[in-house]
């Protein structure tokens, strides 16, 4: 039997679970708190099995009291613990918006630097499972508006496995957005995969003709679009933002300065969204590098509908990304 370990096959869900388990093993201050994280096993089964291993003190089921358990996470963090809060969906986090925006994001500043809030909140985000308008929204861009928060969007197995520990080591509140369509994504992960930086955007596919800037659940669609475009001799570079706050501006400015074209793909709405922010930064810092206007592929300006054909039509898709890129290349190629 070989002692050398090759890559392991793993799902995004399992990678996230391993990250949580690893954190619980590494640091006695870490605990998990949220709705149905214990006996039920987590709404998306991310925490399944952890109750048996770590017990109800550290895998803590809460009542449906989002504001209280997020606020309790803030208090526990200030009191020396390292809570990981699970929010079933970003829509439910709106019930805790007061605690996240008025307390977690402000206390360090309001206290003149005396009290930091080392809290991690994991949330499911995004559409694609016919869950309609109260379980499908992508509000990470909203949270990225708030100074004092950090906003992460792991889109790969490495990031699902590695971002959590780095977030837990961060002295300030970190929100991690997990797109629900990614949980079943399967692939290979190095057996020693672990903590990973959360500061830099990543080029997931190099290309010379156009930069596709995206994150989270749209990354796979962007890569698929890029691969299809390669058949048509258009080489798209795919850039995964990884963090929406802070934004690693220099990496996308460098990329756009090489390709001279940018398309932003964001499952959030176009109006006032993170895509608008990225576009503005390109205008501010790389305007004279551009061969054509920045384009965006975002969700339609509608609450996400239930019916599959309508939901599909509301979201960025491989075809719509390709179409925008081809239009751009046709006009200026």
């Amino acid at each position, binding site marked *: 039997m070989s002692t050398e370990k090759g890559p392991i096959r793993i799902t995004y869900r399992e990678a996230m679970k391993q990250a949580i388990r690893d954190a619980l093993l590494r640091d006695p201050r870490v605990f998990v708190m949220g709705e149905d994280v214990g006996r039920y096993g987590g709404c998306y089964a991310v925490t399944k099995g952890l109750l048996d291993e770590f017990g109800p003190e550290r895998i803590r089921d809460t009542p449906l009291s989002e504001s209280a358990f997020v606020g*309790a996470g803030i208090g526990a963090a200030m009191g*020396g613990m390292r809570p990981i809060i699970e929010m079933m969906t970003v829509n439910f986090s709106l019930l805790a918006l007061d605690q996240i925006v008025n307390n977690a994001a402000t206390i360090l500043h309001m206290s003149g630097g005396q009290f930091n809030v*080392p809290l991690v909140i994991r949330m499911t985000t995004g559409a694609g499972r016919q869950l309609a308008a109260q379980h499908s929204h992508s509000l990470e861009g909203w949270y990225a508006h708030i100074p004092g928060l950090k906003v992460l969007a792991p889109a790969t197995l490495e990031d699902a496995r590695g971002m959590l520990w780095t977030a837990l080591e961060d002295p300030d509140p970190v929100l991690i957005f997990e797109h629900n369509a990614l949980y079943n994504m399967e692939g290979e992960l190095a057996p020693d995969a672990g903590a990973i930086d959360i500061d830099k955007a990543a080029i997931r596919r190099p290309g010379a003709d156009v930069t596709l800037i995206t994150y989270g659940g749209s990354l796979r669609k962007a890569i698929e679009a890029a691969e299809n475009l390669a058949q048509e001799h258009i080489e798209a570079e795919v850039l995964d933002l990884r963090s929406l706050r802070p934004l690693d501006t220099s990496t996308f400015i460098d990329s756009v300065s090489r390709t001279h074209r940018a398309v932003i793909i964001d499952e959030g709405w176009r109006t006032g969204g993170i895509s608008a922010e990225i576009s503005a930064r390109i205008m501010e810092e790389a305007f004279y590098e551009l061969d054509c206007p920045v384009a965006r592929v975002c969700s339609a300006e509608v609450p996400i509908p239930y019916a599959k054909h309508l939901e599909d039509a509301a979201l960025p898709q491989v075809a719509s990304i390709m179409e925008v890129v081809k239009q751009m290349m046709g006009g200026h190629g």
Partner: protein
Amino acid sequence: MSLAANSPESTLDRAHCVDLMRQMLRVRRFEEKCAELYNASKIRGFLHLYIGEEAVAVGAMQVLQPEDAIVATYREHGHALLRGISARSIMAEMFGKVEGCSRGRGGSMHLFDAATRFYGGNAIVGGGLPIAVGLALADKMLGRERVTACFFGEGAVAEGEFHESMNLAALWNLPVLFCCENNLYAMGTALKRSESEVDLCLKASSYEVPAWPVDGMDVIACENATRHAYLSVHSGGGPCFLEFRTYRFRAHSMFDPQLYRDKQEIEEWKKRDPITSLQSRLTERGLISDGELKQLEDEIAAEIADATEFAEKGTLEPVEALVRFVYSEKRGA
């Protein structure tokens, strides 16, 4: 003060009674000075005075120990002062100076102090309750025998966060002492105009939280009730709720013409002024002389004059430091 010394008899001790008088006068005179400085435009923003309610914080603070935590509201100058934050740093904070206890970033509503475990003036009604629950949760999980005292007004009972926090604290048997300062008005809205059930203890009791009403105009009653509740909370009995029935003699803030209450009502309550009441009791029993009272007043006047001078002479944070304390300056907590 050790817990052993924390016995009911100590409240009848002469020196202790004189100290209660001193503390109430400190808060009263400090607040009067704040009003004066507000009118002189030295203090800006919102300013909420504690005049009339001094017995509550003075009584309660006698019992709380240095290792305990305090969560307060935007009407918290008195609590901060009584907790041991210097009059100098509180006044400097209100002047917006860097010597202030929150480096001038919080102001009147956001006094913070790590050294005395003072977790802030919170200016969102009800927003501090979940944080108090979390601080207590951390203590419980870390095996520390401490109490978290959470002060809030009766207006908070209309907030969901009150109910969520009562439930969570009771469900998890957490050491939180909920101190409700019922001054009858949530800004301008009378309790009876906003609640179908005005018995606040009943609301707390419905979550299995032991609850008592307390005469909030009688400092000795406040101290005794707090001690009784504190011992229960401290010994692992779970949260307690105290409803201190009190009254605010001044306007809600400096912008309030008080159209919502009769002058007659204010005058009636002023007859129960906690300071003059204690003074009469002490004078009747020969426990304090006019000379001693004058000496107290002189000492307090000197402390406040010194604090005001300190604040005047304080320095302003350089504008270059504007965005400090949005994120911690060091990673790895």
